[in-house]
Structure formats: structure tokens, C-alpha cells
């Protein structure tokens, strides 16, 4: 174990460097997109009759848009490195501020959705993988493929209608109750937040759980074919012990990698679910900004979403390495 931990550090450093390269490329891609678009941010201004061409050209100078592209690119990278994502056109404040307010909400939503996704997904997948071909397996396969084929916002709307409007069990919008929250006790505040979180997190988590369960099922089938499982059975271990101790351990490893990969999917889904449930997160911020063509906000949100994905993958890689002794000796 001690040796394993020691060479985790260079491994993390290597992965971190890879992550930085990815982020640099993401930033470059966004810059290319910005400049491939017709016109520049001030084109629409110059179409307004009351703004003279002199004003537009002075603004162009102020924003550095008159500089050659390589200079603009370097400035853009410099600003990004300092955490400056520009000014929102419609909110008239730094994009970073708007994103900073939104990120905790999205992280909370995505994390709880991830727990639902993997809690449910692995359980269902294991239940199926241990009795392949049974009636349970076939029924659950039908359920998981249906969940996986569902538009996440539509499931959100259905949950909202049934459990929010019809049954009235859950609030249907926002993060907290704007009327009672400020006066609630600490426990009351916590409950209010959880109460608002359940439906959106459930919608987001259930759709991904369909996918996770399908993966977990095949990982389980794969693991049960392995020699160590055959040996364990030959030793006369009870089937339950064989499954729990030998097959499951091997079948859970690919799932950790999957958790890293699930993050971009959850963030994509969050854009829609946050809009459905008026959840003030990164996704809703970006979706609203697209309609208003406030693209510093959209590009900033995209870059931040990519950063969250890179960090998610990094964590999944490190976790796999810590858990699976085989990956330590290789590489």
C-alpha cells in the first residue's frame, strides 16, 4: 500500500498537466469559434443609427478589437489565466461574478444526481448481472433502456407535474422558498433546500442511472466469467460471498471511470433541468444568455463546464488508481 501511495503523486502531476493542456485547447477552440463567427461583438452596435462610426471605432480600440488576431489571442489567454472572463452584456457585471453565484447550485445538483445515478444504477446493474436472462433481468432491462431513451427535461416536466402540481409533495421551482426561507431555523433551511433539490436531482439522476445500470450489468457479466470467480466457486464459497467478494469488486472498477465520464452528461442535462425547475445554476445561466446573445456568459460557462469535467475525470482516474492495485505497477 505504501509504495502504491508514493507513486500516486507523479501520476496526479501527470494527469494535472494533461488537464491543463485540455483546458488550453478548450480555450483555443472557443477563441477560434469567436473569431470564425461573422462580425465582431460591436457589429450590431454599428447598425444602430444613433451610434456614430467614430464611437464604434473608439469602443473597438478600448476592447482591443483593432489589434491583430495573435495579439488578441494572447490577451485572451492572459485574461483567462487571471480568471477574467469578460463583462456580461446583459447583466453589466463581470461574467466571473455571475458564474461564481451559479456554480455552487450546479455542483450541488450534479453531485446529488450523480449519487442517485450510481446508487441506483449499480444496484440495478448488479441485480441484473447476477441473474442474467431471468424475468427480473429482462424487466429491468426494459426499464433502464426506457430511462436512457428519455429526454431529461421531459422526465423533469412529468415529475414536476405529478409530484409537484398534482400531489403537491415537492416545490416546483427554485432553490429555496423565497418567503419562508429567511425566517426558518437552521434545520428548517436545510430541509427547505433538500425539498427543492429532490425533483430536479431525481430527473437528472434517473436518466443517467439507466445508462449506468446497463454498463454495470455487462461489467458484472464480464467479472463473473473471470478465473478468480471460478476458483472461488470451486473452493465451495457460497454464491453470495462469490458475488460480493470476488465478482463485485472487479465489476465496480469500470464504474468509477464511468463516473468521471458521467459528469459531462450530467452537466449537459443540468442545462435543461435547471431551466425546467428555474434552478439558478451554470446551465440556466448559459441557456438564458444564448437567447439574449450574451456570449461572454455562454463562453465563460462552457469553459467552466469543461474545467469541471477535467477535474471530474482527474478525480475518477486517481480513485481508480488508489483502489485498483493492478494500475499501480503498470505505467
Amino acid at each position, binding site marked *: 500500500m505504501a509504495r502504491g501511495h508514493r507513486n500516486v503523486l507523479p501520476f496526479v502531476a501527470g494527469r494535472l498537466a494533461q488537464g491543463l493542456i485540455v483546458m488550453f485547447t*478548450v480555450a483555443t*477552440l472557443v477563441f477560434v469559434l469567436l473569431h470564425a463567427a461573422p462580425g465582431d461583438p460591436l457589429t450590431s452596435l454599428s447598425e444602430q443609427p444613433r451610434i456614430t462610426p467614430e464611437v464604434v471605432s473608439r469602443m473597438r480600440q478600448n476592447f482591443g478589437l483593432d489589434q491583430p488576431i495573435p495579439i488578441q489571442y494572447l490577451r485572451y489567454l492572459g485574461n483567462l489565466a487571471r480568471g477574467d472572463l469578460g463583462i456580461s452584456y446583459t447583466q453589466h457585471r463581470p461574467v466571473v461574478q455571475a458564474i461564481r453565484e451559479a456554480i455552487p447550485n450546479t455542483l450541488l445538483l450534479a453531485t446529488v444526481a450523480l449519487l442517485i445515478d450510481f446508487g441506483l444504477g449499480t444496484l440495478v446493474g448488479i441485480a441484473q448481472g447476477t441473474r442474467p436472462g431471468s424475468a427480473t433481468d429482462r424487466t429491468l432491462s426494459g426499464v433502464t*433502456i426506457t430511462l436512457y*431513451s428519455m*429526454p431529461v427535461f421531459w422526465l423533469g416536466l412529468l415529475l414536476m407535474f405529478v409530484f409537484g402540481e398534482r400531489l403537491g409533495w415537492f416545490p416546483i421551482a427554485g432553490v429555496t422558498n423565497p418567503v419562508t426561507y429567511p425566517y426558518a431555523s437552521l434545520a428548517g433551511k436545510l430541509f427547505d433546500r433538500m425539498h427543492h433539490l429532490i425533483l430536479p436531482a431525481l430527473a437528472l439522476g434517473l436518466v443517467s442511472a439507466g445508462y449506468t445500470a446497463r454498463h454495470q450489468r455487462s461489467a458484472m457479466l464480464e467479472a463473473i466469467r473471470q478465473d478468480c470467480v471460478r476458483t472461488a466457486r470451486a473452493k465451495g464459497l457460497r454464491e453470495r460471498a462469490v458475488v460480493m467478494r470476488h465478482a463485485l469488486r472487479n465489476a465496480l472498477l469500470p464504474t468509477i471511470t464511468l463516473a468521471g465520464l458521467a459528469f459531462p452528461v450530467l452537466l*449537459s442535462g443540468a442545462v435543461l433541468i435547471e431551466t425546467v425547475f428555474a434552478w439558478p445554476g451554470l446551465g440556466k445561466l448559459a441557456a438564458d444568455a444564448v437567447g439574449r*446573445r450574451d*456570449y461572454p456568459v455562454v*463562453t465563460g460557462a462552457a469553459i467552466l463546464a469543461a474545467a469541471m469535467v477535467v477535474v471530474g475525470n482527474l478525480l475518477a482516474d486517481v480513485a481508480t488508481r488508489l483502489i485498483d492495485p493492478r494500475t499501480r505497477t503498470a505505467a
Partner: protein
Amino acid sequence: MTRIRLGSLAVAALLLLAILAPVIAPYAPTAQPDLIGLRNAAPSWAHPFGTDMFSRDVLSRVLYGARVSLLIGVLAVAISVTVGTAVGLAAGYAGGAVDAGLMRVVDAGLAIPKIFVVLVVLALWEGITVPVLVGILGFTGWFGVSRIVRAETQSARGREYVAAARAIGIPTHRILVRHVLPNVAAPILVVASLGIGQVILLEAGLSYLGVGVPQPMPSWGNIIADGQHLFASAPWISTAPGLAIVATVMAFSVLADGMRAALDPRDR
């Protein structure tokens, strides 16, 4: 094999419904027969899926929506599979700096959650039309394909038949098209089938947000958006297109599953 048959039958049926929409649909998708009398009318013999707030027939809109959604799905995937295959073949066959450079771009493309990539492009370009939307979805969807094709190409490159072709002086582009491509075609088909379902989901999401298929052209996503605030009084408006999406994505997934199982000898 049953899954392949089931999946292709379902896909064929959906394509048929979409192609025959003008014949089957009882009304034009934008017809507003009676703005007052038929506003949000419940399902009836005349309107099996009810009507929406503009008295438009929901069944007709869902049928025409199938044309829009399936067409966008198929065309966008055609673009992303073409681009992804070209990049994957180039990276896998060339190796070295070309491979490293292309794969860094792919890493970055995969790191940005897909909908954000599309949103950035949508925010920058004004006046999105359906062909533009197809282009955006196609040209932002090839990253995953290229990774799979690259891996397959790398393993094909080491095989004898490629070495033999090279030895008798066949030019590289012909080796790629005539010898490598046929051997990597099968996994591409699986990815394409899954991809169509994913693009349909993404397009539905964008149209739901109001930045995808422009109104009044029906798309399953914007029909759901039309009905979202009427769930309590007129649930049929959002229900029908939602079920259509589930059925379609499921059909393509079952087809992809079947193809994958047919290709994987262990799964037989």
C-alpha cells in the same frame, strides 16, 4: 439477431411514418382550424392527440415533427460520422505528431459538455435555420466517433493485409479507403445508430430551450415546450411528442445493441 430485427423494424416504421406524414396527418402542422373553439381541446376522434393553444392538431404536429427530428438526426450523424471517420483514420494511420495534435483537439471537444459547445455556437450566429442547426450538431458531434475509428485503425494498421498492400505500392489514401475502412465500418455503424438517438435528444433539448428548430415548424422539442405550462389542463400536448422521442431513441438504441451483440462473439 432478434434485437437487430426488432430495432430495424421499429426504425423502419418510424421512418415510414415520417415520410408518409403528409398522407397520414389529418391536418397541416400549422393549420389553426378554430382558434377559440378548439383551443387546448382534449383528444377526440377528430383530434386523437388533442389540440394545442393555437388549436393546431397535436397528432399532425407530432407526425411532421418526426420528419424534422429524424431528418436532423440522420443528417447531423452523417456529417459527424464522416468527419470523425476521416479524422480517426488520419490520426490512427499517420500516428506521431498528427495523431497527437488531432487527439488533443478531440480531448478538448469531449471535455466541454456537448450542449455547451452547441450553445456557444448558437450564441454567436444569428438566425439559426434547420440546415445551419444540422451543420452545428454534425460538426460538434464527431469527437467520440474519431476516437473509436482511431483505435480501430491503429489495430488494423498492424495487420498483414495492410503491410501487403503497402508492399505492392498502393498509395496511402487507397489503402485507407479500400483496406482499412471496410474493417472499421462495423463499429462505426453501431456508433451512428446510437448517435442518431443522441442527436434527436439534443435537438429536442435545444428546441425545448427555444434555440433549436424555429417556430412554427414543429419539432418534438418545441411541441413539448408549447405544452409545458399547460400540463395541468392539457397534458396531451407535451405527452405525445415526449413518447415519440422515447420510442425513437429506444428504437435506435435497440438496433445499436443488436449490431454490437452481433459483432461481439462473446455476446452470442
